[in-house]
C-alpha cells in the first residue's frame, strides 16, 4: 500500500477527536476489507488512516425492549451465525451470509460495511427493508439516523466527516411478518447482478397488509421499490405476483455493465422480487 499515516486511537473519544481534527484528510479503517482494495486501486488516497478495528465495547448483539442492537465492530460472521439474528431476522442472516466469502465475513465488520454504502452491498437493502437506524457519534454528541435518510450517493452516506457509526438498531418485526434476501451472481462470491430484500406483513385473511421491498445493485444507492410494494398489498400465497414483478421492473433503475444489460437487469429485478415476495408470504404464514 502507498505510505499513509496510520493512527491508532485507543478509545472512541480519541477517535472522534482525531476525526474532528483531520476531517476530509482522514478515513476510518475498520477491517479494511473494502477500503484496502480501494486504496490499492487509488480510489481513496487519504493522508491519515484512523484504525478503529480493535476499539473496545463495540462488538455485541443485544436484545433490547423493542429492537436488536448490534455494535458496529461486530464481525459479519458473528451476525450471520447469531441465533437471535437467525430467529428474529432471517432476512438479515441471509443478507450477511451473501457478503463476499467466509474469509471476508470472518474479519469484516457490520458497521464498516454499512458505512461504506456500496451500491452492490448486501447489508443496505436488508437493513433498509427492516427499517433499521444507526447511531453516529462525534465530538458534538450522538444522534440516530434512520436508514432511509442514510444512503445519499455512490459510497456516500449522510454521516458527517467527523462522525463514527457506532451501533445499528433493528426494530423487532410485527407478528405475521416474513422476509427473505435474494442475490443473483454469475459466480459464487461475486458482486451481485441484482439483489432483492423483501418483507411482508399479513393481515387476518393471510393477505399482504404491508410490504417493504428494496432493490440493490440497481442504482447508486439501494432503491425502495415503491410501486412493487403497492402492488403487493392484498396479495396472498395463491397469487402469481406477475404485476408485482412488472412493478419492480419499473422501480429498477440499473446501469448496463459487464454483468448485464438494462433489459436483463430489470427483468431479473422483477423475477427475483416475485420470488422473494412468495417466500416472504410463506414465511409470514408459518
Amino acid at each position: 500500500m502507498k505510505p499513509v499515516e496510520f493512527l491508532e486511537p485507543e478509545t472512541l473519544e480519541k477517535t472522534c477527536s482525531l476525526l474532528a481534527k483531520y476531517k476530509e484528510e482522514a478515513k476510518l479503517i475498520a477491517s479494511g476489507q473494502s477500503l484496502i482494495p480501494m486504496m490499492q486501486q487509488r480510489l481513496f488516497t487519504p493522508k491519515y488512516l484512523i484504525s478503529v478495528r480493535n476499539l473496545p465495547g463495540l462488538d455485541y448483539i443485544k436484545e433490547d425492549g423493542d429492537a436488536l442492537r448490534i455494535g458496529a465492530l461486530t464481525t459479519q460472521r458473528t451476525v450471520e451465525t447469531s441465533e437471535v439474528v437467525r430467529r428474529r431476522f432471517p432476512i438479515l442472516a441471509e443478507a450477511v451470509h451473501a457478503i463476499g466469502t467466509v474469509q471476508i465475513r470472518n474479519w469484516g465488520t457490520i458497521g464498516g460495511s454499512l458505512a461504506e454504502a456500496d451500491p452492490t452491498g448486501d447489508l443496505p437493502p436488508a437493513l433498509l427493508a427492516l427499517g433499521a437506524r444507526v447511531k453516529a457519534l462525534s465530538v458534538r454528541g450522538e444522534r440516530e439516523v434512520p436508514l432511509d435518510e442514510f444512503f445519499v450517493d455512490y459510497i456516500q452516506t449522510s454521516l458527517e466527516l467527523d462522525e463514527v457509526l457506532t451501533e445499528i438498531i433493528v426494530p423487532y418485526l410485527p407478528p405475521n411478518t416474513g422476509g427473505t434476501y435474494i442475490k443473483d451472481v454469475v459466480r459464487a462470491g461475486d458482486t451481485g447482478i441484482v439483489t432483492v430484500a423483501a418483507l411482508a406483513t399479513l393481515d387476518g385473511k393471510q393477505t399482504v397488509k404491508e410490504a417493504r421491498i428494496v432493490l440493490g445493485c440497481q442504482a447508486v444507492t439501494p432503491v425502495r421499490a415503491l410501486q412493487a410494494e403497492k402492488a403487493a398489498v392484498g396479495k396472498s400465497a395463491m397469487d402469481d405476483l406477475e404485476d408485482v414483478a412488472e412493478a419492480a421492473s419499473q422501480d429498477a433503475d440499473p446501469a448496463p455493465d459487464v454483468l448485464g444489460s438494462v433489459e436483463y437487469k430489470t427483468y431479473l429485478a422483477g423475477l427475483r422480487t416475485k420470488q422473494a415476495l412468495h417466500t416472504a408470504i410463506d414465511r409470514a404464514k408459518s
Partner: protein
Amino acid sequence: MEKRLLKLRVNGEDYEVYVEPWHVLRDVLRHELGLTGTKQGCDTGYCGACTVLIDGKAVKSCVVMARQVQERDIVTVEGLGSDGELDPLQQAFIDKFAIQCGFCTSGMLLSAKALLMENPHPSEDEIKEAIMGNLCRCTGYKKIVEAVQAAAERS
C-alpha cells in the same frame, strides 16, 4: 514516516519487527518474517491465495492491516503439521492429486483447516462454501473437495 515496533504471534512463535505502519499482514509475513508460503495473488482480497488463520478463522491477509492483528494468533501454511509430519489435510491433498501448480494450495489448505476445526464432518456443499473464496485455475476444484472429504474421513 518512521518504522514502528510490531509484535506478531505466528505459528505459536512471538516475533518483533520494525516496519512502516501501512503494511498489510501478507507483506509482513513474507518480507519481514520470511514466511513465503502465503502467496500474493490479486492484491484485492479476491483470489484467496493469501489466506491465513487469525484466531482459528480463515482471513485474506492482503486486506488486513498488520498492526491490527498484534493481539491475535496467526497460523500460516508453515504452521500446519508438526515434528516433520504433514497435517492429514496436506497428505490428503497429495493423495488425491489436489495440487497442480500449487499457487492456490496454501490458501486452500488453511480455508479447509478452518472448516474442519469448526465442522469435522462437512458435507460437500459445506466444503465448497468454505473454499468459495479460494480461486484455483488448474484443478477445477473437484480433487480439492475430494481431498478435504478424505481428510475429514481419516480423522
